[in-house]
C-alpha cells in the first residue's frame, strides 16, 4: 500500500519536500516504515531521533499502519 508521510523542520529541509509517498508492504508497522525511510534517504541516518505521528497523534514503533493513515515524522520539537 502507498502511504503519505509529512515532513517537518530539519527533515523537510534535508529531503526538500513537505510530503513524500512511499510504498510499504502490508502489514507494516512504524518501525518497518522508519527502516524503509532510512534506506531510501540515507542522509536521515544522522537524524533518526525523530518521533512518528499517525493521524495527528504520537504512536510507537509497534503501531500497525493502515490504508489511508497519514504519517508525520516529528524531529525533536523546540517550541516555546
Amino acid at each position, binding site marked *: 500500500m502507498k502511504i503519505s508521510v*509529512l515532513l*517537518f*523542520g*530539519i527533515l523537510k*529541509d534535508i529531503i526538500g519536500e513537505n510530503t513524500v509517498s512511499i510504498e510499504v508492504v502490508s502489514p507494516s508497522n512504524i518501525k518497518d516504515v522508519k527502516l524503509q525511510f532510512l534506506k531510501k534517504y540515507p542522509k536521515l541516518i*544522522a*537524524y533518526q531521533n525523530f518521533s512518528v*505521528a499517525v493521524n*495527528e*497523534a*504520537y504512536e510507537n514503533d509497534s503501531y500497525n499502519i493502515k490504508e489511508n493513515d497519514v504519517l*508525520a515524522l*516529528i*524531529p*525533536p*520539537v*523546540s*517550541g*516555546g
Partner: protein
Amino acid sequence: MIENTSILITSQKLNLQDCYDFVQDASCGGIAQFVGTVRNKTQDKSVILLDFSTYKPMAIKEMQKIANKALADFDILKIAIHHAEGELKIGDIPVIISVSSPHRKAAFEACQFAIDTLKETVPIWKKEHFEDGEVWVNTHP
C-alpha cells in the same frame, strides 16, 4: 472542560491581555502568566530572528491535551495556551500561558507544567537565524 481552555496558534502578534481576560474570574485569587520572549543570543552568537513552524492540527491537539491535563491535575479554573508561528524578532513573544486559580500555588504549578510539557511534546520547531547562517534548534545529530 473545553470551555475553560483557550488554545491558539497564530501568525498574528500574541496578546497578553486576551489571555488574562480569558482566565480572569471572580472565584479566583490569582493568575499566573508565563511569557516566552525571543532572546538576542544563543550561547555567544547574536540571533537576528527566529522562524517558528508548526504541524498545526496536531500542535493544537497536543496543546489541548496539556490544558486538559492541567485542569485535571491542578486546582485551577481556566488556562490559556497561545503560541505564535512565523518569523519573530528579538523581544517578540512566541508563547503565553495564563492560568487562574482560587489559590496561587496551583496556578504557578500548572503554569510550569504547561510550558515544560509544551516544550517536550507540541510539534513546533524554531529555526534560529544568525548573521552567518541558520540552524534548527535541538536537532544536532
